[in-house]
């Protein structure tokens, strides 16, 4: 019995030491990680806007691919967060709209697309084909509606997975207007 106790005790002791060590380290790194994550999101949101500052996140329910919205102070704009369906699964997309539903800027965040194909959507300039659409001109959703369809060849699924939510977002914002 004492033998068992001793072994249990020793394992407990080692566990305790580990937990203590990790607890201390965690208390140091946790704030850093949190701050960094917040900063990254903030930077992304701000990059979507020419002027103005994004407000707090509001989660949306039952809005299809639109998962959240951010109101903007200092500019007539909304920022929407989407989850689109790409080749490799969910893709997180952030986009800013003016009150007419015209797309101002888009960025592809977390995704699991194929490097060299879908991942191209992360690159600068990829989203140019969407910017300025959604208001008077419709958001292109099929390859044939593009000026340069070859640009998305081989990654049509990624393209469609971004375009469809953007179009949805445009309609959503049009309906929403400046109704903050």
């Amino acid at each position, binding site marked *: 019995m004492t033998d*068992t106790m001793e072994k249990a005790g020793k394992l407990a*002791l080692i*566990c*305790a030491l580990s937990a203590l060590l990790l607890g201390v380290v*965690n208390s140091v790194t946790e704030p850093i990680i949190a701050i960094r994550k917040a900063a990254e999101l903030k930077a992304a949101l701000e990059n979507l806007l020419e002027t103005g500052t994004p407000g707090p996140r509001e989660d949306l329910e039952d809005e299809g691919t639109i998962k959240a919205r951010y109101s903007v102070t200092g500019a007539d704009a909304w920022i929407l967060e989407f989850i689109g369906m790409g080749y490799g699964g969910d893709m997180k997309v952030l986009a800013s709209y003016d009150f007419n539903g015209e797309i101002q800027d888009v960025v592809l965040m977390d995704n699991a697309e194929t490097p060299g194909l879908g991942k191209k959507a992360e690159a600068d300039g990829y989203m140019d084909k969407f910017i300025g659409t959604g208001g008077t001109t419709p958001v292109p959703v099929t390859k044939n509606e593009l000026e340069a369809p070859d640009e998305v060849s081989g990654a049509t699924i990624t393209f469609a997975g971004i375009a469809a939510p953007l179009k949805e977002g445009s309609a959503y914002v049009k309906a929403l207007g400046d109704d903050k």
Partner: protein
Amino acid sequence: MDQVLRIFWGFLSTVLFGGLLGTGLAIASRKLKVEKDETVEALEGAFPGLNCGACGYAGCGSYAEAVAAGTDEDLTKCKPGGADTLEQVGSIMGVEVDTNAARMVARVHCIGGSEEAVRSFNYQGISDCTAATVLFNGDKACKYGCLGLGSCAGVCPVNAISKTDNGLVVVDQDLCISCGKCVDICPTGVMRMIPESADFIVACNSRDKGKDTKANCKVGCIGCRICEKKFPDAGYKVEDNLSFLSYDSKDPGRAEAAAKCPAKCIIPNKVKAEEASNAG
């Protein structure tokens, strides 16, 4: 404050968790104690790990178990390991093992290549000696010689055997690990083990009468007994129309006997460099 509290909770729950698991495992391990046999492990370490089966077991592991369990008292079955292994095994088992036993290597006892030996027919079939012997025991007129199709080369675990251009095979005795597989598979029995130190061999396996041997092969042993009679201490002994050489004594007479052999079938054991490089 919050942080400290969390560290505390973590500390506490991990301690509890660890304690619990520790108790459980300690009890469990007592109940489920598996005796790990150190001897087996040590033996396995000593064996070369080729799993070649020369010992007659499925692999090094099973031989180690058999030795450790005492079911096999012969500690010298691992030929591939050589003296090193023998010594180690001996010390693990606490037994004196004669590590001086000469290393044995395989040697083809036939030099009747395509030039020398008569082939009776045009063999068409599997390139494998055992399969070839189902047809008139092979295409050589001499039914004891090397067919050169290389069944032995196929089973050698270390690729020590290669075919030569003249329809025979040659063993690279440096590579040979004495496993004896080639001897087992050879359908004509022309592959035999000899001590590595052997200086000469009678390179023939024909038990035919001298006349027949002569008709079948230019370099076959005709059983004339010159070697046996003229050099009685050299170790030659003719039985079944064939001279056998025993390597117990180191008598220089062997070289002279080789020179006197009318069939020129007593040759130095070591393969000459050119002959080895002839191997294709």
